């Protein structure tokens, strides 16, 4: 497999005061380029921890973590910031848009870290908003948009800098079924048409069904990894 993500014997231990909590116990997993993988499991199983490690937001206590052809467990904090900007698109459950910026400006934020000119940035933002069906909402503030529209803006922000990997943490967790379906189809389209590798944490089996592979975690261990039947 031409892997986008490779985890080898990953252990993650959190310290809470004097207590050490081991969340992932030597987890190994490989995700190929262009895969759409859903990660499911009960609360406390380590799904979000796994997602944070893959996204370079956190570092493993031990083990080998290769994402987008880079040993990110060996990068410094500053190097991981720059690496995230180039390689990862984020979609959160609660959108995490900046409330003081318009939709268009929110989408533009990742591009501020590039060398693109203002005109180039504007063109990219327009294209991203067009892709998520919100070309006419560029000047609206997040508070003027519905939950589904905010999540679409969040997806536009994730894809505007053209990263190869999308990490999505419960992207439909705050949406009604119909809106959630629209968001999942959008993610499927990005996976299918643009070849983006998508890793999605979800509690919702219907949402997980949109992925090409489903991974189940329990108590910090991988229990099932199965490709979805066509």
């Amino acid at each position, binding site marked *: 497999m031409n892997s986008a993500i490779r985890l080898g014997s990953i252990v993650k231990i959190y310290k809470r005061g004097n207590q050490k909590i081991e969340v992932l116990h030597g987890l190994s997993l490989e995700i190929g380029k262009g895969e759409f993988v859903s990660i499911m499991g009960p609360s406390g199983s380590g799904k979000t921890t796994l997602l*944070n490690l893959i*996204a370079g*937001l*956190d570092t493993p206590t031990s083990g080998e973590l290769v994402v987008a052809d880079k040993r990110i467990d060996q990068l410094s*904090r*500053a190097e991981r*910031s*720059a690496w*995230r*900007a*180039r390689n990862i698109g*984020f979609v*959160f459950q609660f959108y*995490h848009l*900046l*409330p*003081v*910026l318009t939709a268009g*400006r929110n989408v*533009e*934020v*990742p591009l*501020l*870290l590039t060398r693109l000119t*203002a005109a180039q940035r504007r063109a990219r933002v327009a294209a991203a908003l067009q892709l998520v069906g919100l070309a006419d909402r560029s000047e609206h503030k997040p508070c003027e948009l519905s939950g589904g529209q905010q999540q679409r803006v969040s997806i536009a*922000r994730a894809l505007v800098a053209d990263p190869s990997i999308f990490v999505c943490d419960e992207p439909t967790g705050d949406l009604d079924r119909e809106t959630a379906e629209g968001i999942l189809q959008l993610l499927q389209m990005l996976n299918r048409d643009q070849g983006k590798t998508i890793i999605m944490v979800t509690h919702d089996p219907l949402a997980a069904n949109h992925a090409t592979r489903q991974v189940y975690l329990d108590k910090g261990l991988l229990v099932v990894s199965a490709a979805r039947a066509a």
Partner: protein
Amino acid sequence: MKYLLLVWAGLWRKKARTILTMVSIVVAFLLFGLLQGINQGMNTVFQRLNVDRLYVQSRISMSDGLPIAYLEKIRSVPGVRAVTHWSFFGGFYQNTQNTLPVFAIDASTQFAVYPKIKIPDAQVSAMQRTRAGAVVGAEIALKYGWKIGDRIPLRTSIWNKKDGSDTYPVDVVGIMDISAYNAGSFPAFYINYDYLDEARAFGNGSVLYYIVSIEDPRRGQEIAAKIDALFANSSDETTTQTEQVFAQSQIKQVGDINLIANSIVGAALFTLLFLTGNTMRQSVRERIPELAVLKTLGFSDNKVLMLILLEAVLLCVVAAVIGLALARIAFSFMGSLFGALSPPALVIEMGLGIAILLAAASGLPPAWRTTRINIVDALARR
């Protein structure tokens, strides 16, 4: 520049708080501009004062006066070009509300020591000839409608006459233009010293101080020392200073303007430091999850730190510029009170420097705190 969008948006996240903080900074820098402007402006005026004039006063206190007999002795000091003397009259017109800057002078030497007073020679001669003559500044003459030939019943709050009266009738013999010396408190109403000295009930034979015009300004210190040496160990010892130092010491009798101005400005800026610091701290604390999102998207710790610092700089500098601009406008309205005073470029530069320091001091602690944000915890609002 591309980050200005984020900085500006962050600044106006809570509009009311930002506006109130800005108003406080504007007021503080308006105060700074006004007080430092007055301060610097006075220094500029002092520097413009003549250094070829010396002031000789009693060593004990200026109000003690000096004997008129010193006149010839001072005149005999080598390097002295001319000597004149002034005696404060404490004058008023009709009632004490209408105070007048009246000084008893020696008309034969006054205009030689102050050559920039504009007055026709004929009027100077008339003053010398007329015992009860008076020369009045043009502004005062205009204010009271006085003209040459008018008789004014000038009254004094100090020098009662031997007959018990406080009124000295004087005849206006000249109108002068003293604008060349208008540095605030230049005497603008002259009467003859002899007229006062003969009539007054006490203090006869004394003057308030002597003004000495010297030939070479570079010898000012030396000549001052010689004059003081003349009267050393006498019952009326003298202190001789340049006009510049003399004017400063007169102002200091009211209070050390420099110290007062610096104290007020210092207190205002110190308070401002806490106010701005608190605003920045609150603003950052409320935005921890948003800052964590920026870091998630790839903004480094240093970039986020710079964004917060830039926000503090923008807040402080914009408000400071408004405050200093208002001070400049205020000075243009106060020009008639303070002559040509205005906040010099140095005060504006100092103000901007202080604004940047203020921004750094108030913005750095919360900005530094953002470098320790744990993204995972902040996104989960832990």
